[in-house]
């Protein structure tokens, strides 16, 4: 926070707005500040989640919400945490910093104890200090830009693998494929650009040539400009680090422009819809770097069946991480001997060692990221992604 960074300024603006909103809400509730909730040791343990329910990423919201709700229902059915029930409140993040800041302020006013949300890194960024000021620990299930860790806030924990781990997995794989000219494409958001930049650095260190690195605008349909540049650079490996909608279009347009090389996408693009948009024939053999999912871990099938039974639909991206975030929050309250004070929870979270979550045994690093954040390489087979063997 010491450098007068432009993003920090934006965050501060959003924060002041949120504080103003928070102050209004607080006034209505006769000054019941969120800090009081820690002493209220009898009521429900309140979890808050920011997730996109509208806007371009609105498809993800229900996946995360249902994942979290499944964990809440399971824990409550098993008697809750020390006899206290969990309660989940969901607010819209819309993948938009302003909406996210307002939503965070609402959750703070509602007196949540732990935040278990955060999808778009750019929208999650301004909420860090809002929750931080209110002494609320954050277990962020999806957003994983390294920017989130820059200000080293002690209430911020990332439950998803970060760009650092993902770009390592990506560059290792690209190197193992023996590529001569790599094209790196991102959508100009902090999440996506972070991965291409790190991957480019890794590849350079490994002696693999990056022939083309560019950012495209999300939300458009025509990427012929980017495709022509890739073709001109004679790339034999394309790595896309944005989301699945543009990813599907890019794959389709690359293939119809006659691109014959390998294509790989990052975790934001891992969705059946990518295959549907690109067309099955075009998408076959597309690789992906992805945090371990229920489909790729032992015993995952049972979890998928449970999810399907509860919500009547398949789990999607970040359902497992949202599920885990809730379970970690409950574990932290248990470890903190029932306290829901921010400090106690943070100490408890830092102390957790060996708690089983989808990505492996949980132990947070000093930077509050996963120590075991295994990224798998997936590959498109038929109409979906499967583990690459």
């Amino acid at each position, binding site marked *: 926070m010491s450098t007068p960074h432009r993003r920090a300024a934006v965050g501060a603006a959003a924060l002041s707005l949120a504080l103003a909103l928070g102050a209004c809400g607080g006034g209505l509730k006769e000054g019941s500040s969120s800090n009081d909730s820690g002493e209220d040791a009898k009521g429900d343990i309140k979890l808050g989640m920011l997730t996109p329910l509208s806007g371009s990423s609105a498809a993800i919201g229900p996946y995360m919400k249902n994942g979290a709700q499944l964990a809440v229902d399971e824990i409550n059915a098993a008697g809750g945490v020390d006899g206290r029930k969990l309660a989940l409140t969901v607010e819209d993040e819309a993948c938009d910093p302003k909406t996210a800041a307002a939503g965070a302020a609402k959750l703070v006013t509602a007196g949540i104890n732990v935040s278990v949300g955060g999808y778009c890194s750019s929208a999650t960024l301004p909420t860090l200090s809002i929750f931080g000021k209110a002494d609320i620990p954050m277990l962020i299930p999806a957003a994983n830009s390294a920017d989130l860790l820059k200000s080293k806030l002690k209430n911020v924990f990332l439950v998803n693998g970060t760009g650092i781990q993902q770009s390592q997995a990506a560059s290792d794989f690209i190197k193992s494929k023996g590529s001569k000219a790599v094209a790196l494409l991102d959508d100009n958001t902090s999440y996506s650009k972070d991965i291409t930049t790190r991957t480019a650095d890794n590849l350079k260190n490994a002696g693999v040539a990056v022939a083309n690195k560019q950012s495209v605008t999300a939300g458009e349909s025509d990427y012929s400009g980017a495709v022509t540049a890739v073709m001109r650079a004679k790339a034999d490996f394309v790595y896309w680090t944005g989301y699945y909608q543009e990813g599907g*279009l890019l794959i389709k347009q690359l293939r119809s422009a*006659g691109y014959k090389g390998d294509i790989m996408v990052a975790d934001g693009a891992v969705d059946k819809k990518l295959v549907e948009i690109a067309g099955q024939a075009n998408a076959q053999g597309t690789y992906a770097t992805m945090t371990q999912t229920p489909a790729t871990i032992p015993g995952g099938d049972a979890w998928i069946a449970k999810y399907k039974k509860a919500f009547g639909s398949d789990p999607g991206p970040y359902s497992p991480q949202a599920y885990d975030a809730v379970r970690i929050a409950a574990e932290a309250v248990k470890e903190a001997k029932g306290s829901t004070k921010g400090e106690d929870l943070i100490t408890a979270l830092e102390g957790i060692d060996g708690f089983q979550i989808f990505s492996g045994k949980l132990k947070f690093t000093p930077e509050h990221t996963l120590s075991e954040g295994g990224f798998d390489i997936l590959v498109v087979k038929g109409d979906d992604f499967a583990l690459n063997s």
Partner: protein
Amino acid sequence: MDYVLQLILNGLFVGTFYALVALGYSMVYGIIKLLNFAHGDIYMLGGFVGFTLLTVGSGALAGGGGIIALVVVMALAMVATGLVGLVLERVAYRPLRSAPRLSVLITAVGASFALEYGVAVGYGPNPRAYPVTVGGGAVHLLGARITYAQLVMMAIAVILMFGLDTLVRRTRSGRAMRAISQDPRACLLMGVNVDQVISRTFFIGSALAGAAGVMAGAYYGKIDFLMGFIIGLKAFTAAVIGGIGNIRGAVLGAIVLGLLESFGTAWLGSQWRDVFAFAFLILFLTVRPTGLLGERVTERV
């Protein structure tokens, strides 16, 4: 050389989509001086109407050729979006015709959001993959590559534009449109049914945008409820570059914008595409507000 040709082809192809949407913008502006910001969403609606028809009728269409089915669906979608355009004008714009320009502009923005999120409620926020996509091979032209699908799309667009041009220049109702754009009050006094002509303009403009929506769905293979937003702004830019209110200008502006974007991104990188496009909007508005083919604005006393 083949690289430059490829850039030109890319630009022309994107330009035809912009043109179909820009035409509606320009026609409506020409006739009632309204910037119909909901126009991009009519394009989106066209995509969804086509999606619904293709999904429902996929069994019946299974035997028929892809292109013919697509043209039939496109015609139906054009009628549907044309009717939506009619209703939009009747409900949101006609009651405000004598209101200040700003009120109508705000209604237009409101109508845009209503359409976007109305579709999001109906179809859900997830993007939909189009049930029929035009695939097929590609031809090589002096080293540049163009797919058959692109050629078909461009041919359909050119036919539609040619039809519109004939309609406006050679028919009675086209003459009425041109007359109203000159002086609506005099037309009223001369016995022209102004309301009817304005409705017809909305119908035609919306139908063209709807056709572009179906084409986009079929070619790119993906539609979502926000797909009309950026193209609406781009079409507006194209209309301004060509001279807003001028029909041939809209097509010219769209082609110019497509080419500018294509060469701009090749020169500066993809992330500069929108910066480039909208910088040209500002440039034209400040340096040549009447656009390339715009008529001189005469002050009426």
